């Protein structure tokens, strides 16, 4: 329990800040993040432009704020997709066992035999390199891990007394699954979803950095970093601040994830 407090606190503050900024930008930003202003090209951080301007004179603070909201919504949708698909597959597979389970899991394990990023790149080449392509590609790439975790949890639950009791009371299979099985899978699911949020954010930044993600002019931290790279000598702030945002967010998620694991999975307490 000793390490719980500071980890959770720092992680919570960082992630709270991220969501706060992502929400704030819908109401207020210091400047228009998309407005070109060639008179103010590549300005160093100043009182007017707190973190400077980019090669088109756009305000970095505003672009970072808008980027936060883009990254958060992409990450949430990706995790949502993976959780939805993975949970369904895992529940069906774990609950039915037999042939259905064997077929689903053979396919699932084959997908797990691909490194996540490789599968995402392959799917991206099919669905197109843009915002929606990323959500579908990463979402599908993470689905097998969710399915595996949920199936494991269901397998260990399905012979427990309270599940049998529910069946004996002639509750329908679907009701039993939703009411009794699923809530007991939540702990590992939350831990996994937190990690996936971090992976998605990192992968989305990496893909945007490679030019396979959200296309400009819409800002994301990844494509801002890529755009700032040619100017690294004369305007290093262009590359420094977006990367700092990504790092702080990932740090927040890692700390929060550790704290959650300690809390929800007491066996692992203090381990990772």
């Amino acid at each position, binding site marked *: 329990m000793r390490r719980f407090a500071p980890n959770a606190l720092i992680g919570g503050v960082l992630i709270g800040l991220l969501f706060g900024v992502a929400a704030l930008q819908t109401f207020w930003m210091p400047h228009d993040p998309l407005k070109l202003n060639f008179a103010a090209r590549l300005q160093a951080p100043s009182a007017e432009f707190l973190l400077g301007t980019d090669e088109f004179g756009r305000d970095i603070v505003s672009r970072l704020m808008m980027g936060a909201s883009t990254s958060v919504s992409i990450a949430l949708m990706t995790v949502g997709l993976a959780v939805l698909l993975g949970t369904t597959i895992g529940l069906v597979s774990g609950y039915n066992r037999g042939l259905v389970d064997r077929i689903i899991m053979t396919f699932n394990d084959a997908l797990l035999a*691909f490194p996540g990023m490789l599968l995402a790149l392959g799917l991206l080449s099919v669905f197109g390199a843009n915002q929606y392509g990323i959500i579908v590609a990463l979402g599908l790439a993470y689905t097998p891990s969710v399915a595996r975790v949920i199936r494991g949890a269901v397998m260990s639950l399905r012979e427990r007394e309270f599940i049998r009791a529910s069946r004996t009371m002639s509750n329908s299979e679907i009701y039993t699954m939703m009411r009794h099985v699923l809530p007991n899978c939540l702990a590992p699911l939350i831990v996994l979803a937190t990690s996936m949020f971090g992976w998605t954010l990192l992968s989305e930044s990496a893909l945007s950095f490679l030019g396979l993600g959200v296309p400009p002019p819409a800002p994301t931290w990844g494509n801002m970093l890529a755009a700032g790279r040619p100017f690294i000598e004369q305007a290093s702030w262009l590359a420094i601040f977006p*990367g700092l945002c990504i790092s702080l967010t990932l740090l927040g998620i890692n700390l929060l994830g550790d704290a959650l694991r300690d809390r929800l999975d007491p066996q692992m307490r203090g381990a990772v």
Partner: protein
Amino acid sequence: MLRFVLGRILSAIPTLLIVSVTVFFLIRLVPGDPAALLLGDHGDAAALAELRAQLGLDQSVLTQFRIWFFKVLSGDFGTSIWVGEPVLPLIIQKFLVSVQVVIPAVILATLIAVPAGILAAARQNSVVDVGLISVATLLLSIPTFWLGLLFLLVFGLHLGWLPVVGYVSVRTDFVGGLLYLILPILTLLLHEIGTIIRMSRASTLEVLRLDYITHARAKGLSEGAILWRHTFKNAFGPTLTLLGLILGNLLSGIAVIETVFTIPGLGRLMVDAIYARDYPVIQGCMLFIAFIYILVNLFIDLLYSFFDPKVMTQ
């Protein structure tokens, strides 16, 4: 022993097969006619029909898969649309470049991080432990492409110690080529140190909790002997498994590092192929990386039995 090894090797075959099927059908999901994609804009109807026949696209999907699969087995991964060269030699050439960054980074990271993790576990909750775990979590949180840019900024531009752009193969100029590899290796190394320290610490803690360690302490063995002789061998297994995953993820995730440091490696090849919609290359890269990943993990599984002989009896 022999039965275990053979069993493991045989069990990799269905996985390889299903992976091939997945890669084959994944590319089939691309909307449009593969022959039209292959020809690009400069194809007339006659050329299209000829190519369709040549590729076997006029046959059933199963026949197509069979033809493709046996070609792959014989090392024919098709021809790149963009470069016009056979895919496999292209991939191998780029792979050998990526390996020069990935392998030294993983080896060095293991040599540094495994002892660091054991040390942190042995001194659980001390300043050393909290310090190491904090550094590890921090390193884990910094994206490699940003760390790489910062290194370029500091060591390349401000200090001028190392070259900033370009790439020279170590085979043409050993020392010069090495200079281009230092920063990419350092970047990957630091990131992986973060991951490995955490795993090494966690699995060491797990083992230190067991009864036989208490017994070893009761016998009056020194802490050093307990850690090295009794703990390390049992605690290294999970870290070893992690190393296999890291290698696979690095091979597919190395594109960002290769972009930052302008290294013409496998990651860059695949990303450029995605830009160019060069499907034979995408397919080839996916298949190649997945195969390497499966083989590395197979090898690690076999190695695992040395650290934890129990797996052989299961």
